[in-house]
């Protein structure tokens, strides 16, 4: 499973969000786009929606059932949700874990 594919899924969701005026700049979303924290456009409720949509997208694309907001994610000192890149890496790890199991 490639990181590019996962990143593509996240960017696709950001493009959908860009239909709303306040998220218009997500049309230029890339691997460095912040998702969480002071420099992100997303309110926490938007991030919740994005993560739920991403779980669905991963299930549809790879037929793998993951819970992104798991205990590990919520307890990390630096959030894995802070940027497209960090979220991509985290989702890859979750997928790898499911595949090993």
């Amino acid at each position, binding site marked *: 499973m490639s990181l590019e594919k996962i990143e593509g899924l996240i960017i696709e969701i950001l493009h959908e969000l860009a239909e709303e005026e306040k998220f218009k700049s997500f049309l230029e979303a890339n691997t460095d786009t912040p998702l969480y924290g002071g420099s992100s456009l997303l309110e926490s*409720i938007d991030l*919740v929606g994005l993560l739920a949509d991403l779980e*669905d997208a991963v299930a549809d694309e790879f037929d793998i059932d993951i819970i992104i907001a798991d205990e590990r994610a919520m307890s990390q000192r630096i959030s894995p949700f802070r940027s497209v890149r960090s979220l991509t890496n985290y989702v890859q790890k979750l997928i790898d874990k499911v595949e090993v199991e």
Partner: protein
Amino acid sequence: MKSESTELITIITGTRKGLGKALAEHLLGKGHQVVGCSRREGTIEHENYEHFRVDVSDETSVRKMIRAIVKKWGRIDVLLNNAGMASMNHLLLTPTRTVEKVFNTNFLGTFLFIREVAKKMQKKKFGRIVNYTTVAVPLDLEGEAVYAASKAAVESLTKVAAKELGGFNITVNAIGPTPVATDLIKNVPENKIQELLEQQSVKRMGTEEDVINVVDFFIKPESEFINGQIIYLGGVN
């Protein structure tokens, strides 16, 4: 295959018997597509009814069920967290395993279904969720410590979920029935039921219709402004 149907897609947990079955039959009659679940085989035969064998406190099975529903119908409009388990006993005589079972079914089951279904509802920016509490919470009924505590947890969950999900146009409310003659209370002694009825302002047993009436109110389109509310039957406050 996803259908473009306009009928409401409704999940009801615990539809094998009692209130859940009555509610399912009522909503099927109103044209809903109803998906029910219970740990054992379903008992409803209807062209618009589908049954899943699921333990509501099992995360993996719940997620599988929700995914299958969305795959087939594209969305979920209504969730009735009806599945419940009672335990009537003095707390000094209540086994730990009973506490776990009651909390798993009543609280964890409700939590899991809200979390997984709301993930799908938020996409469509619409949803109606109804949870189940009991008059045993406000009345602090003796002999129901564990049952009432599990439902008090459901009440808190209802009120906080209403705030957190309100932004997605999802309402979360709860109904608190008085005793209704179902399997849930079949082991409660007659004098205990009588004592309870004496504390209600309307002193009679509840009926399935009383519960259906409140559920209908919570889920109807005009109730979009009703959120985070607990409605008790029988005039209990």
